[in-house]
């Protein structure tokens, strides 16, 4: 099906007055004019398709770029950083010649429309980013946020999302080792489905997305290209040029994890034989993105024959082919002499592979269709020179009132019975309840290298069987804190993920993030975004953990109502010997429970204020990153030197939540005493940052407290591992059975 006449470069030059549907494609007038200026003529339909997707918010970061720069500018010196922001994913050195790549991405909107496939393809996309770096993916994580737990639509969205993440990740053979599940009415209609992946490689195997070496071949491999996710392009194809086209193409993509598994295996085999010069996954913006990025990052130009792209639907127009977001595809640049071998490997794995073009001497990206040249652009103008906006931002008027609405003034429990009731209410509330019903739908064991997985503070994977080298990852975010103060909220997310990694005995090395916000066109949202980025960048500098990459998801809002600003932070850590890891479970009766850090009256944004009073106001807990760093050092030393047998970080829900979790995990209770200077309520529910509990064998007590004392970290003995109850002396006793029932029944009751 070819329209008459084909909109070639020549044709475009000769017909300057043809009206193009740039507005329907999401371009602004001045953006379209820039394209005309860059080209010196009107774009062809195909060129317009490419520019419009590549200059979209999602691909160009046009609203966020000016802020994200801080991650580079403020980046701390780090020997670990091998590849930084700008590539498919960052890469860090974890020692012994190994490098690790990791990244988090969002698939929020598609997961609302089609929960299963939206979430599944989110996993697929992030995993391809990891493979594109040259790494074997070794684990995934999934920070998730949904509307109110008891809202009927949550029952539609959550099970589908969880099944999709499991269905895809399990089928790929990637252990799921962490994530989050948060419920809040603000995510109704805008669930946040973030997915992260980690990959491992040797230093020499790092691959980059660039096409160099004139004459090298461009190979497209994986699934055939279909009409997925190209709503915009079909406008271009049908309404303007050819009304016979189907005007609606699906905006939702269906994933094929089996195809992706084959893609992983054949890509790794090609890497191993050193067949690949450059490589890029096809994600958002499909071939438009892959060809323009490969070409613009390389030394030369690129010529592509679009007719050679294997299609699933022969009626697709060239614009649609360029914009299609069909899943499970990759693009590799291969030297001519190695093409045969590359194709052979693809065939071995039953993966379709086709040479669609080659790297050229020039500096143009030229794309042909039916013999005509339909694209002739400088690829940098497509991939890198998109518009950049300095969106106006302003602290919202309501921020002061929100912060003045101090949670410290909320009525507190007056009697022991009330205290006890509130403890039960807290540990059984949807956000604090056990997420086992969800996490048991994920494979934790596959690949046989999982040391820690949910509900541990961080997931941990063995990297080297001989030496015991391992990596840990934790993801955290707290939209409630960030709503109260986005700068501090972002730092609290960072601090928590950092602390979680250290709690398991690993040394935090680097950061990735997924920044979920409302509309950047709202100055209040833009302020939240700017503050969060500034907070995160400052925090990373102070902690010495560079941001290696990440993702921005904007427009998460329904009408005027934006979600809570939700920066999600992933921290990656390394541990020299996984045998020294520290789990969270209380396992030995008689061990002493110590609380590390300072507890203050901090209830703003707390789980207690939400669960007991349905309240959000005041200031979030204070951040002291030097304290976080000290706490991490102590936790890591104590784990390495065998001074502690369990450790659990304190975050939402405070101390009581942590104690209950450690007790239930190990099936051993705890007897607690309120330390001097604190009241029982604050002791149990405060959410002061920079804290953890540890279980210390009696034989190690002196050594451990000496170490804390010498380094200036407050360590308070608060109780002992004992029996089958959690008891707060003089206040209440709860049996583990009762706690377990309360903690574990909530989610199945809501969702099963």
């Amino acid at each position, binding site marked *: 099906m070819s329209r008459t006449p084909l909109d070639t470069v020549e044709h475009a030059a000769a017909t300057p007055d043809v009206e193009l549907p740039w507005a329907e494609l999401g371009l602004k007038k001045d953006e379209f004019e820039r394209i005309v200026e860059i080209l010196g003529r009107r774009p062809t339909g195909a060129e317009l398709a490419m520019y419009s997707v590549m200059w979209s918010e999602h691909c160009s970061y046009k609203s966020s770029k000016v802020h994200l720069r801080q991650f580079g500018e403020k980046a701390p010196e780090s020997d670990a950083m091998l590849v930084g922001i700008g590539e498919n994913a960052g890469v860090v050195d974890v020692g012994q010649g190994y490098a690790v790549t990791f990244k988090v991405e969002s698939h929020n909107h598609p997961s609302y429309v089609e929960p299963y496939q939206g979430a599944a393809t989110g996993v697929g996309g992030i995993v391809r980013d990891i493979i594109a770096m040259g790494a074997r993916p070794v684990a995934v994580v999934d920070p998730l946020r949904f509307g109110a737990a008891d809202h009927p639509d949550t029952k539609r969205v959550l099970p589908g999302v969880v099944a999709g993440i499991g269905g895809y990740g399990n089928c790929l053979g990637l252990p799921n080792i962490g994530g989050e599940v948060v419920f809040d009415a603000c995510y109704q209609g805008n669930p946040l489905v973030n997915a992260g992946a980690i990959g491992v490689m040797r230093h020499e195997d790092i691959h980059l997305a660039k096409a160099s070496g004139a004459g090298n071949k461009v190979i497209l491999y994986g699934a055939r290209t279909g009409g997925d996710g190209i709503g915009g392009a079909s406008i271009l194809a049908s309404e303007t040029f050819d009304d016979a086209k189907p005007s609606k193409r699906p905006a939702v993509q269906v994933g094929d994890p089996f195809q992706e598994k084959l893609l992983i295996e054949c890509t790794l085999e090609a890497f191993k034989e050193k067949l690949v010069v450059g490589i890029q996954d096809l994600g958002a913006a499909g071939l438009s993105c892959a060809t323009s990025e490969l070409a613009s990052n390389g030394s030369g130009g690129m010529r592509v024959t679009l007719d050679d792209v294997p299609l699933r639907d022969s009626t697709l127009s060239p614009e649609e082919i360029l914009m299609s977001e069909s899943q499970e595809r990759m693009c590799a640049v291969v030297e001519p002499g190695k093409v045969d071998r590359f194709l052979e490997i693809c065939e071995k794995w039953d993966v379709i592979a086709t040479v669609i073009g080659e790297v050229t001497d020039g500096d143009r990206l030229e794309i042909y269709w039916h013999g005509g040249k339909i694209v002739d652009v400088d690829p940098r103008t497509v991939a890198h020179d998109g518009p950049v906006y300095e969106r106006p931002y302003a602290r919202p008027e309501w921020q002061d009132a929100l912060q003045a609405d101090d949670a410290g003034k909320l009525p507190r429990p007056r009697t022991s019975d009330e205290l006890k009731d509130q403890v039960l209410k807290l540990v059984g509330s949807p956000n604090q309840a056990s997420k086992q019903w969800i996490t048991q739908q994920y494979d934790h064991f*596959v690949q046989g290298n999982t040391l820690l997985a949910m509900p541990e503070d961080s997931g941990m994977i063995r990297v080297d069987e001989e030496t015991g080298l391992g990596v840990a990852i934790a993801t955290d975010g707290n939209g409630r804190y960030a709503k109260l103060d986005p700068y501090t909220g972002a730092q609290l997310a960072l601090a928590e993920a950092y602390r979680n990694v250290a709690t398991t005995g690993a040394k935090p090395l680097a950061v990735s993030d997924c920044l979920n916000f409302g509309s950047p066109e709202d100055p209040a949202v833009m302020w939240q975004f700017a503050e969060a980025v500034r907070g995160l960048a400052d925090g990373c500098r102070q902690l010495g953990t560079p941001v290696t990459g990440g993702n921005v998801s904007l427009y998460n809002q329904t009408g005027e109502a934006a979600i809570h600003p939700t920066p999600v932070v992933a921290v990656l850590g390394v541990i020299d010997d996984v045998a020294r890891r520290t789990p969270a479970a209380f396992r030995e009766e008689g061990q002493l429970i110590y609380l590390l850090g300072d507890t203050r009256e901090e209830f703003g944004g707390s789980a207690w204020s939400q669960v007991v009073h349905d309240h959000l106001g005041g200031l979030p807990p204070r951040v002291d990153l030097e304290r976080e760093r000290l706490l991490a050092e102590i936790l890591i030393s104590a784990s390495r030197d065998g001074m502690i047998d369990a450790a659990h970080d304190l975050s939402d829900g405070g101390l009581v939540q942590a104690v209950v979790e450690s007790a239930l995990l190990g099936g051993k209770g705890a007897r607690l005493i309120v330390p001097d200077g604190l009241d029982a309520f604050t002791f149990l529910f405060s959410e002061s940052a920079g804290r953890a509990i540890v279980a210390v064998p009696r034989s190690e007590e002196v050594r451990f407290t000496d170490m804390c004392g010498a380094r200036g970290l407050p360590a308070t003995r608060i109780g002992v591992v004992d029996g089958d109850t959690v008891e707060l002396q003089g206040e209440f006793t709860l049996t583990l059975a009762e706690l377990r029932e309360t903690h574990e029944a909530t989610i199945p009751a809501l969702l099963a």
Partner: protein
Amino acid sequence: MTARIGVVTFPGSLDDRDSRRAIRLAGAEPVALWHKDKDLKQVDAVVLCGGFSYGDYLRAGAIARFSPVMDTVIEQAKAGLPVLGICNGFQILTEAHLLPGGMLGNDHLHFICRDQKLRVENADTAWTADYTAGQEIHIPLKNMDGRYVADRRTLDELEAEGRVAFRYVDFNPNGSLNDIAGITNAAGNVVGLMPHPEHAVEPLIGTGRTDGLPFFTSILKKLVNA
């Protein structure tokens, strides 16, 4: 001289490397086998490992069962070659009719991953000799299609002949009839089960137990002493 145990990789196999590791830790020599090769490279036994061969599309194990390697496995299994099918491997064995019955989706309709308690009911097979009958063990379980079904006559026959090799204890994770976790053929050389012994061979990893190692030491002893 040690035994050579083959592990077949189908497109979509996931636990092939883990199975080879378990074989190595037990002291045998793992040999990688490829689904497109009829040749079994003269191995002394074969493991069909877990995963989603062909994406588990159509039915779990249904497409893999028609691969070239399975032609040979079926032929030699009938002649006595020891074959262990784990999870997807078990599904392939039922699809290939080397083991009776069939596997369906879990009755709760979800994938399930947990540390599962089992009882070894038959310690006389090629793969279970290092256990004692009645022994209770913990082995990770992870599957979508783990519900074992068979008609009444087949079930009665399996029970009567002691061919239920493993049974779930305390909790039936998928609705399998008679709590069946694994079965053996009459000769005891072909064994299939849903849980994953290859994930329970190192004290640090996974659930931190090594209850799965005896599968691999059992077969090794049998082969070396043969």
